[in-house]
């Protein structure tokens, strides 16, 4: 699994001709500005960006929604096992939608 903080030089689009290091992408996670150098984020990556004390177990489910993403999937939800491409200015929301 790819971690949000790890730059990914092998991602298609990097030609390796001595470009400056990839500029981190500015995104909004839970209403706050964050930066990531990853090109693609997994469900767990996004939860970690949202919560320092994120827990991953069988019974805890986070609801993730995103908007202003890449053209092929600009908005939607992300569940365990899925990844999404990152775009400058992309909005992520992560919450435990467990209140009534």
């Amino acid at each position, binding site marked *: 699994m790819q971690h949000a903080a790890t730059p990914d030089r092998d991602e298609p689009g990097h030609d390796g001709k001595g470009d400056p290091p990839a500029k981190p992408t500015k995104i909004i996670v*839970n*209403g*706050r500005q964050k930066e990531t150098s990853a090109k693609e984020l997994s469900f767990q990556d996004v939860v970690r960006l949202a*919560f320092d*004390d994120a*827990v991953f*177990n069988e*019974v*805890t*489910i*986070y*609801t993730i*929604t995103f*908007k*202003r993403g890449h053209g092929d999937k600009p*908005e*939607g*939800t992300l*569940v*365990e096992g899925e990844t999404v491409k990152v775009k400058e200015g992309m*909005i992520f*929301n992560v*919450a*435990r*939608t*467990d*209140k*009534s």
Partner: protein
Amino acid sequence: MSRALISRSPDLLRLQNDGYEVDVRSGHLLVHSVPYVNARGEIALGCAVSELTLAGDVTSRPGSHIVMFVGEHPCNRDGSEILQIKHQSHTMALAADLVAQHSFSNKPPQGYADYYEKMTRYIEIISAPAMSLRTDVTPRTYKVIEAAADDGVFNYVDTASTRAGIGAITAKLAMRRVAIVGLGGTGSFLLDLLAKTPVQEIHLYDGDLFLQHNAFRAPGAASIEELRDRPSKVAYHRANYAQMRRGIHAHREYIGEDNVSQLQGFDFVFLCMDTGPAKKLIIDALHAANTPFIDTGLGVQMLEDSLELWAICRVTTSTPAKQDHVARRISFAVPDEDGDYERNIQIADLNALTAAYAVIRWKKFCGFYQDLEHEHDSTYSTNCNLLTGDDVP
């Protein structure tokens, strides 16, 4: 109910006393055995139908000048259609047991003052050719119509559906038994919407008391006297909605291992409870019984710097057609009170919105609203105005 309505409304009573075969059924006013001449010059009997505008189960001034007709198009003595009242001809499903074929329009400049004036005016035009062909023919038969068996759930007629002409569609919602588990903010708004549908029995499950803070997250306006009585949530809401309808059953208990079997035999279940092990127990039982359900969930978070809130509202649906997404969408974790994102912020409008989304989804399941996507998970995010739909079978 219909007999009482007629006896309380002077215009309907006058119609009946004049010998017209007056009937109130499925929210409409009917006058049976209205003679008319058909296209073949024969004398036939039809039924004139009107919407009913009521205030407290007494007639008001008619809300529409249109009359509908069950039968062939009424004609003149020569078999030509009566053009004076001609309006539309097609199948009009006014209610499950009431289908008209024609509507007529004849509007006096000042409108109709009451239903006596409205119905007698139309019947006069419809019946005149028949009455001139044969002197023994009359719409005033003095035959008494037996009151239809009253199997409705409301204490007064649902004129909202009949005024809108959607009685036949509304009838699709008449499930026999529906449960709401959890009567907090979302559950109480959900009850508010469900109570106004023809569901026969609505069972409420919650062990909690209705306290002062609950009043700010529930529909309506509780009085301080009601709060001082410290009623249970289910009793408070049952009493409130019993003013409008029958069939609301209050169960002052939380659902757990001992009583989860109570959820057997429901046509549909709404889960509006905070998450936790009990939710897993309930969902396992509902899946085992193939009972369709909707789980609602809300997450509100605070931005400390800007003192603003944002939220995600979630509606997850499980039907016999699709259940395998539930484990990825619904959390069963015990709420963790430590993390700062775990404070229990809830806002009435978000509860109401989540409840409304859940009820709309249920109405799609019932075939009331068109459903092109059959999404089994839907979310709304407030801060970017995003509505999502996923998990299509």
